[in-house]
Each structure stands twice: as C-alpha cells, then as structure tokens.
C-alpha cells in the first residue's frame, strides 16, 4: 500500500506490477489525464499545486480506510504535481484483490475520496492566456488575472 506525490511522468504498468501478487486475480486501475477542454474553454495545460505534506498524509489515510473497508486489497497510487500538458496523466490509482468486485468498489471509493479530500488544486491554463483555479462547484479567478 503506497501513496505518493510525484513530479515525474506516471506509469500505470509500474503501479500494476507493484500490487501484483499470485493471490490477487483482479486489478482495477484509474488514470486521470488533462483534457483539452473544460466547461467549453480550450485548455493548454494544468498546473497542479499541492499542500504537499498534508496531501501525502491524507492520501495515506484514504488508503488505510480503504484497506480496512475492503479486506484483502492492495493499492498503489501516485498523483503528479507541477505543470502538465493536455493528455498527461495527473493521477494513477491501482487496486488489486483476489476478486473483481472488491477491487472495482475500492477503486471507485478511493478515487472519490481523493477528489474530495486531497489538498491538491488545479490551476487551469487556457488558450487565451488566462488561468483559473478549478474547484468542484465554482472557479476562482487568480489575482494576477483579476489585477491585469
């Protein structure tokens, strides 16, 4: 079981190997990548910023909770930070279990928890040169845009 913030490109195969075991016959993965549009706006990239120490602590708490809830899973997750281009993977979560139902259930639960709890923020960069902090429900202009 391992969660980390990283700056290098993510590699799903490496994480799959990390949780592989002869006892686990089902591996479920989630990969999040930067999309070229969001809310109808052309996106050129996303700068992922984190409250690093807390994000890693919170990701590990999420995994501990999942392992307690879904007995027998193993999990590896990496979240990338820094400036990512369209198509780059920002997160990979891999869950392995003997059977498919707990692996799929745990994967979904972990991804939802990360989205709502991990102290990571997207600064979305647009083709028109502006940028905005993305939040689930609302978007906040960054001060440099507001002042410009």
């Amino acid at each position, binding site marked *: 079981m391992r969660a980390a913030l990283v700056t290098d490109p993510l590699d799903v195969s490496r994480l799959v190997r990390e949780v592989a075991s002869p006892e686990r016959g089902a591996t479920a993965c989630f990969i999040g990548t930067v999309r070229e549009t969001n809310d109808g706006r052309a996106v050129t990239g996303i700068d992922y910023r984190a409250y690093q120490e807390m994000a890693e602590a919170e990701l590990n708490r999420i995994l501990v909770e999942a392992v307690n809830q879904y007995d027998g899973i193993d999990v590896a997750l990496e979240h990338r930070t820094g400036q990512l281009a369209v198509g780059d993977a920002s997160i990979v979560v891999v869950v392995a279990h003997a059977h498919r139902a707990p692996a799929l259930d745990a994967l979904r639960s972990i991804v939802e928890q990360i989205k709502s709890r991990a102290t*990571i923020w997207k600064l979305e960069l647009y083709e028109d040169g502006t940028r905005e902090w993305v939040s689930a429900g609302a978007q906040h202009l960054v001060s440099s845009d507001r002042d410009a």
Partner: protein
Amino acid sequence: MDITVRVFAAYADALGRAEVPLVLPDGATVDDAVRSVSTLPGGQVIPRSPLVAVNHTYASAAVRLNEGDEVALIPPVSGG
C-alpha cells in the same frame, strides 16, 4: 502563543502570500485564527467557515490551538 497559518491556491493569491505568522492568546481556537487572517488585506476571499487543517489533519473551527501549530486554510480541493 505563536502559530503559523498556511494558505493555498485562490486564498494565497488573494492574500499575496503563502504563510501568515500569528500570535494568539492561549486558548485560541481554529476559528480565532481564521478570523485573524480574514481581516488581512485580501482576506475577504476566505469564507466564514473555510475548510481548515491543523498539523496536516482536517479540523473543526472549535479546536483549540497549541504553541507551534500549523493551521492551513484550504480552498475547495480539485485534485485527481
């Protein structure tokens, strides 16, 4: 007592800084720290009850602070 408040993303942009050192009376709570930071220039961006963490763990407004605590004001997260 001395505590450190860290701010992030839109909050940091609005305040023009990432960290605010505070001196608070003994017995002060998370809510006291939030109110102090809210009075700074740009602090109006911070909602009345923001998400807060103390020493890297989410905490409620009523939690009492201790010398050296790291309080974080956390805008809506958007990782993943």
